[in-house]
């Protein structure tokens, strides 16, 4: 254990931050913070943006960025909800409705695959910088959503959808959390135990060298955009269950929040680096802050922006001290220099 933290200093630091955050809210809010409803509330909320963050993590590791996932996710959710609403009515059995919902979610995933594929094509085949390509696609998807809904929310979902969303698996795991756990395990497996994960880190570090090493970089980057979009679309479908509707601008704050989480976990869009455990801890930290802050009655929702923005800036500034020119790196250089001398 001690060895693990010696090797993963950053993980240790995140855990200290986590403990500090927990301590802060325990002191200020007391037992209210540790209530069962609080805990289950958290477990209901973080899978939404947790799934999206996992997807975006793949993009970041490969040295790309996806700015389109919110717009694409909303578009897919709108289509899926429209489909479900059109194909269900009050007289149908739960089983039949479940089937329609399943098809709806499948539609959202398929749209995700398509959207990710387009992002990938723009980036790999046309050499458009990923930021630009995905901002443009974001405008397009948002345009579709607005045109389809005239800016209104799509409502009328069968009750079953949010019932399932609020149900527990095995009696105690909230359904969204269950989805997140599956998503997390798959992501961890992909990154740690497959050649895809290994290649992803190498592409993120130097895509050209990877190409010269007989690695199909174009295919893998397209695949990565697809994975990212599928994860975020599933996150958006979880969001639909909490909102009971779909709208063109739901989740627009998630872009900021997901990037914050990844930066907090030390994952930058420069590519080549990212530990999934760190990302998990960062997700949990952000959720705890979000829930804890909501317990202060005098704070409105926009206060959260202040905290997220401020936190991102502080983490960024501190991270220059940790890596790069900061004290960790300097210490490492000194150590290496001393070792060379001996």
């Amino acid at each position: 254990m001690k060895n693990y933290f010696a090797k993963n200093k950053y993980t240790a630091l995140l855990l200290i931050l986590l403990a500090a955050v927990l301590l802060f809210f325990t002191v200020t809010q007391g037992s209210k913070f540790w209530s069962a409803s609080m805990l289950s509330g958290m477990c209901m909320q973080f899978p939404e943006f947790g799934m999206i963050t996992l997807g975006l993590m793949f993009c970041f590791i490969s040295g790309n960025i996806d700015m389109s996932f919110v717009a694409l996710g909303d578009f897919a959710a709108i289509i899926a909800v429209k489909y479900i609403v059109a194909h269900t009515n009050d007289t149908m059995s739960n089983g039949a409705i479940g089937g329609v919902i399943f098809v709806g979610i499948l539609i959202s995933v398929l749209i995700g695959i398509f959207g990710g594929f387009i992002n990938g094509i723009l980036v790999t085949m046309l050499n458009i910088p990923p930021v630009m390509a995905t901002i443009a696609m974001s405008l397009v998807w948002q345009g579709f959503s607005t045109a389809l809904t005239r800016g209104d929310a799509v409502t009328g979902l069968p009750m079953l959808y949010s019932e399932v969303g609020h149900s527990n698996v095995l009696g105690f795991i909230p359904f969204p959390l269950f989805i997140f756990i599956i998503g997390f395990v798959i992501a961890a497996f992909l990154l740690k135990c497959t050649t895809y994960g290994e290649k992803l880190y190498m592409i993120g570090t130097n895509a050209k060298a990877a190409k010269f090493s007989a690695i199909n970089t174009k295919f893998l980057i397209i695949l990565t955009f697809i994975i990212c979009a599928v994860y975020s679309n599933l996150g958006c479908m979880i969001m639909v269950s909490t909102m009971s509707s779909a709208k063109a601008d739901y989740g627009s704050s998630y872009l900021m929040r997901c990037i914050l989480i990844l930066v907090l976990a030390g994952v930058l869009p420069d590519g080549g680096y990212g530990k999934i455990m760190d990302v998990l801890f960062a997700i949990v930290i952000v959720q705890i802050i979000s829930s804890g802050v909501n317990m202060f009655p005098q704070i409105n929702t926009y206060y959260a922006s202040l905290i997220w923005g401020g936190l991102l800036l502080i983490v960024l500034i501190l991270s220059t001290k940790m890596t790069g020119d900061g004290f960790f790196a300097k210490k490492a250089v000194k150590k290496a220099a001393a070792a060379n001398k001996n």
Partner: protein
Amino acid sequence: MSEYLLEMTGICKSFAGVHALDHVNFAVRPGSVICLAGENGCGKSTLVKIISGVYTKDEGEVTFEGHKIDKITPAEATKLGIQVIYQDLSIFPNLTVMENLAINSEITAGQKVVNRKRWEKTAREALSKIGYDIDLYAKMGDLSVADKQLVAICRALLFNAKLIIMDEPTTALTKKEVDALFKTVRQLKEKNIAIMFISHKTEEIFEISDDVCIMRNGKNVYAGKTADLTREDFTYHMTGRKLTNDKFVPKNVSKEPVLEVKDLSLKGAYENVSFELRKGEILGITGLLGSGRTELALSLFGLMKPKSGEIRLNGKSATISSPMEAQRLKIGYVPEDRLTEGLCLRQPIADNITLSSLKRLSGKFGILNHKDIYKDAQIWVDKFSIATDDPHKYASTLSGGNQQKIVLSKWLSNDLDVLILNGPTVGVDVGAKQDIHQLVHELANDGLAVIIISDDLSEVVQNCNRVIVMKDGHISGEIGSDDITEDNILEIIR
């Protein structure tokens, strides 16, 4: 006044307790060319940075034109007449030639507003210093490396430079361009400008320099006239060991060619290229930059599609559409630019070595055990004696030679028939160069077919049993074993 323009005695500089420079003495005579030579990491660049004021010395004395100087800042160095032309040339690719020439002196003069006429005048003045002619309104990024270098030199001359330091100026130049550069250097010498030339290429040093200063491990081991030195002495001082130059003699060449290229053409790159390659051979391909040699290699590796012609592997016709296909056909390629094309620097050594053989190391469905990566990599680390104690360390921690060994082992851990090496020892110091050559000889004798693409003629002469010379996209000559000498090759190139 002393006979020296710049004299440095007993210079010491250490970083975090490690001596980068240990009582180094260094002196430059006015109007002479001095070469500062040494292997990577010997302290050359630290010394240059002390002269240019980027670093401050810990100990020692610096005298410039007879005046003792205690502390040099970059601005002061410029005022004194010291100009450094860095390896990356410090140019602005997005600006025009005129702006690149004039911008530094405009900043130094503290100008606030742009006056095109004055800029143009300054730029013309700069060009006239060496009588160089180029379109002032061309975009810098569109120029060739050689032109960029001349622009950088012109820019340095604007500051009434007395000493120009050139950091490895010939690395990206072709033979012809090097000749042109040396002509300019001699021209500057006549104007009583001293040139300090940093290099590790033996031939160039003997061609251009009057004096030489050789450094090893932070100390200077030789300083004196170049003429007093033999090439063997020079190499000995550089590396600290005696080197042997074994010429490659093929031992078992197969009867049937493993690779046949017939009338291969790609418009604008190369045309009607035909050759054969047998197992156990080392074929050299040489020619000037832009002769089509790199494009030909890229086509054999599936990165550039030829327009017409045929490639046959082991007697069968093959289309190489991608590096993945090339790998399947047992062709490996060690690229020209190690840092951008060969390595993922900020990843472990082991992951770099196994990058092309992940398929072999993984199970069904691409499932991978990271322990296998390190086990496999350790084999190559031991085999090629890559200087590291732990393959978990980043590839960036190694020297150029060891990095090149990583790129080589990346391909050799695959089952190969043909290995193409493009500039295998560019930026590699003499000792490691020797190791790599030895290794390639062994590989060929074990039955690998090797192609070496290089414009380092001594490398081609020493390592190849057959040489193809390319010129303007065509094969302009082929030389067999006994006739391979630098003179013979040069005759065809020119």
